[in-house]
Each structure stands twice: as C-alpha cells, then as structure tokens.
C-alpha cells in the first residue's frame, strides 16, 4: 500500500516538475543559443542599437520600442473601454442585458488573433489611412486599436471579477446611506478593487506584448525607431517571425533569441508584479475581515 502511495505521488510530482521545468528549460536554452552574442560583448550594443543589417547593425532597440509603444497604446485605449463596460455589466444593468453582454465578452476572449489581424487589415487599415490622410494605415495606431479589441474582453472579465470581490455589505451600506450608483462605483468599488484591476491590466498587457499575428499583419514591420503613432513599427514577436528565415549562423538569427529573452523578461516582470498586487489584495482583505 505504502509503495503504491509512493509511486502515485512520484508520478504526480514528476509531471508537475516537468511542466514547471519547461519554462526554466526554455530560458536556459535561449541564453545558451544567444551565448555567442554575450561572449562577443555585443549584448549591450544589440540591446540599445538600431537595426540595419546592410550596415552591420543588429540592434533590436526599435523592436523593443515598437513592442512597448503598441502594447502600451493598446492598454491605454483598452482601460477606459473596459472600465465602462465592466461598470455597465456590474452596476448599471446587472440584469439580463448585463449577463448577455458578459456572455458575449466571454465568447470574445477565445477568438484567435489571426482573425483580428485579418479583419483589421480589411477594415481598420483603409479606415485609418483615409481618416488621417497620412501614411499607409499600417501603423502603431491600427495595430494598437486591434490589440485593444483583443485584450479588452480579458480586462473586462478581470475588472468584473475584482468588483465582485468587494464585500457585499460595503455595497449594501452605500445603498442604506442613500448613495447613488456613481458614488458606489467611485468611492467604494474602485478604492477596494483597484489592486485586482491592476492585476487584470498587467496580465492583459502581457497578452498584448506577446501577440504576434496582429502586429505582423497590421503594424507594417518597418525597422525604424517609431516616432509617432502613425509610423509603421515592428514588435519583438513579429521580428522573430520575420527573421527566423535568416541564415542560422548569422548574427541576425541570434537576435531571435535575444528578442525571446526580452519577451521572457517582460512576461516574468508582469507575472511577478501581478503576484505582488494580488498578494497585497488578499492580505488587505484578510486583515479587514
């Protein structure tokens, strides 16, 4: 009996170690493959330089900037929309309409990004080109709007979830004092739910950072350092997809692993930040109750 117990525990344990080990394995692997870059002392140059292979420049700074700009703008667009939508679903009309909207939002979280990219290229790119009378329409703005559309559902669901964690007696107290909806929202819900909301924002920006297809299809992929939202730009993910065709031994190809490491670091930072805010929220709630 004891033996079986041990075997079962071992199986469970090893599979969990395996699944957790993958991510460390990937990081180690990226670092090993990018090692020639480190050893040649090119690391810093590549991280802070411009991209121009014809002139021997292999810096991925424009891509890092592109990633940050596009994801940042997407989150910036997405926050007010998500705030409004979640407020509507949670407070303004929590009845049938709200539930129906919530179902739609839940369904939208699963739509693949290639679909967003595809519709974006047909609907949004010509619209942006004609509206602003400038450039090709394949720009930071277009892909940020499409990304915002991609991450909003996730953000809305996170917001609603953290709203619903606000203790019911707080809300009842506001009602008892005769407070109206906006007071309930602005003075009770948001001060109590903001940590959860920030977690949601961080995790959805992670999704925006890591998306490949939307930026590959819509943002134009130019390697210039982005100057305005109407400029074409390239993200780290799109850079990987484009450069993987290069010669394996070239320095160009090595930038793939460097980009991978950058994305990895960004993701890790996001996860750690999200964990910290979440933990504090739990802590705070435990203290109060």
């Amino acid at each position, binding site marked *: 009996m004891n033996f079986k*117990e041990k075997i079962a525990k071992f199986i*469970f*344990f090893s*599979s*969990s170690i395996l699944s*957790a*080990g*993958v*991510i*460390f394995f*990937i990081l180690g*692997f*990226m670092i090993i*493959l990018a090692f020639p870059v480190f050893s040649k002392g090119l690391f810093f140059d590549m991280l802070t330089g411009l991209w121009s292979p014809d002139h021997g420049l292999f810096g991925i700074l424009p891509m890092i900037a592109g990633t940050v700009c596009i994801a940042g703008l997407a989150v910036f667009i997405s926050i007010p*929309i998500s705030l*409004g*939508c979640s407020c*509507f679903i949670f407070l*303004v009309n929590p009845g049938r309409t709200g539930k129906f*909207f919530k179902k739609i939002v839940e369904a939208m979280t*699963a*739509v*693949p*990004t*290639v*679909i*967003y*990219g*595809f519709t974006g*290229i047909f*609907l949004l790119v010509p619209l942006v080109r004609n509206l602003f009378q400038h450039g090709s329409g394949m720009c930071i703005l277009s892909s940020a709007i499409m990304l915002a*559309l991609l991450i909003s559902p996730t953000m809305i669901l996170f917001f609603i979830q953290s709203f619903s964690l606000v203790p019911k007696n*707080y809300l009842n*107290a*506001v009602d008892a*004092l*005769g*407070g*109206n909806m*906006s*007071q309930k*929202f*602005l003075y*009770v819900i948001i*001060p109590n739910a903001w940590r959860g909301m920030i977690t949601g924002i961080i995790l959805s920006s*992670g999704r925006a*950072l*890591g998306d*490949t*297809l939307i930026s590959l*299809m819509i943002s134009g992929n130019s390697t210039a350092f982005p100057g305005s939202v109407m400029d074409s730009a390239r993200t780290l993910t799109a850079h*990987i*997809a484009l450069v*993987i065709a290069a010669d394996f031994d070239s320095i160009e190809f090595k930038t793939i*692993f460097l980009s*991978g490491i950058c*994305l*990895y670091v960004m*993701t*890790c930072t996001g996860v750690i930040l999200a964990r910290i805010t979440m933990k504090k929220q739990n802590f705070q709630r435990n203290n109060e109750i």
Partner: protein
Amino acid sequence: MTTKNWCQLCCKRAAPELNNGFGINNGYGINNSQGRIYRRRKFVNSLVMTASVLTTLFGLFWLVWLLWTLLSQGLQYLKPSVFYLATPPPGSSGGLGNAILGSVVMTFVGVLIGAPAGILAGTYLSEFARESKIAMVIRFANDILLSAPSIVLGVFIYEVVVVSMGHFSAWAGSLALALIALPIVVRTTEDMLHLVSNSVREAAAALGTPQWKITVSIVFRAARSGILTGVLLAVARISGETAPLLFTALNNQFWTHSLNAPIANLPVVIFQFAMSPYDDWQHLAWAGAVLITLTILIINVLVRVFLKTSKTVF
C-alpha cells in the same frame, strides 16, 4: 472587517457629500448649497452612467462590426466543398479540407500530450503539495508559461524538434500546441479540485483510504466535469493558435498521410491566404476565419454547459 475601518472608509470617501447631499442631517441648513451639491451629484451620477453606457456601446460597436464582417464575408464562401477539397493552387477552385483535418489532428495530439501531464501536475498542486514551497515555485513557473508569448514557445520547439529532426512536422506543431495547452490545464485542474469540498476527502480518509486512492477515485470523480472544462478551454485556445505553427508544422498544400511531414492547418492557411493577392484564396481565408471562430464559440458554449453540470455535482 472592523467597524473602525468602515467608518474611515465612509468618512474619507463619501461622508462630506452625504452630509450635505441628502439633507438628512441638516435639512434646513443652507438651502442654496444643498440644492447645488445635490444637482452636482446627480450630474456626476448621470455623467458616470452615460460614460459607462457610451463606452459599452463603443466597445460593442467594434465587436459587432468585427463579427458582422466576419459572418457576412465568410458565410457566403462557406460551401460544402470547403470541407472536402484540399487547398488549391492560385487561380483554381478548392477548399480547406486538408487544413481543417490538419488542425483537428494537431489540436487532438497536442491536447493528448498536454492534458494528461497538466491534469497530473494540477492534481499534485491541489492534493499533495498544497501550500508548500515547491508548490509556490511550480505555480509561479506555470503562471509564466501561461503568459509566455506563444511565438517564444514556437522558437523553442523549432530549435529542439525541427532542427534536430531535420524537417518540419506535425509532431513539432503538436508539441508546440501541447506546451500552450499545458499551463491552462494545470491551472483549471487545480482550481476545480479546490472546489471539491474537504469533507469528502476527510470522510474517505477516515475510512482508511490511502491518499492516492482518494485522489483518483473520489476527487477526480467529483471534479470530472471541471477537469473536462479545463481541457476544453485548452482546446479552444490552441485551435486558433498561429504563431508557433508558422515554423513548426509549416504548411502543406495537400492531404498529409504522416505526422512526420509538414501539415496544413487552418490558422496558418488563413494567415497566408489573407495576405495573398488571389481572390479565391482570400475567399477561402474568410470561410476559414468564420469556421474557426464558430468552432471556438461552440466549444465555449460546451464549457459553460459542463460548468453548469459540475456545479450540481459539488
């Protein structure tokens, strides 16, 4: 929570206005300012309300616009032949049959690899490791894997599988998908097992049942539909995944007989056909887009149905 906290909250946030606003306390005080503040509050309230409704409408407008384009463009090209003909060379007619088959096969194999490992790992976290240090580390690693960009996982599989095997293959694609499915299954399995009430476990333990048996024959049974939900969510997620397949499974214009060869798959075909200059390819891309979206929506509905039944179990 303590009364003190609640008082602080009220005083800090709402009280200054509540005191004047409703005139409960000082109904006869300063009529003018009372009316003004009341009006201001009403105005703020309606402002917040309108803003919320407007943003909702705005968000909804984009979603509806997207879905409408998808349906209106896609449905007209969604003919029966789409399902049984292979992807055509430019300028001739064909379907998406091989791509659909390839996607189904790779999703299936990917889940077959990813789900068991994920279920076992999730069970370990929930039943054995619980709050231990090692569980924290595993959970953290799982969270990173969950939010790691899929293209990074694709690069990893490309280097490990494709380059060492010497060719692109459906296996490589499936493995990449399995890596994406894994953390989703781990997370949902753990959550779902947490929902099984402890008294069930205690009852079994009191009868002298060893822990592995409690886990396998009692906890698993109770959380059956919950675990299935996790697997379905993983299916929904990986069936639309494109980026890692671009350089693992590659693409294939024809029916594939072997998992050892490049394989056609719907997301990559949509990507390539969408960017192509040929009208029939673009029509097929729309058809594929609708197909994939509808499939995922249906899986989502299934998930909800399963969740409902799982609630009745607990």
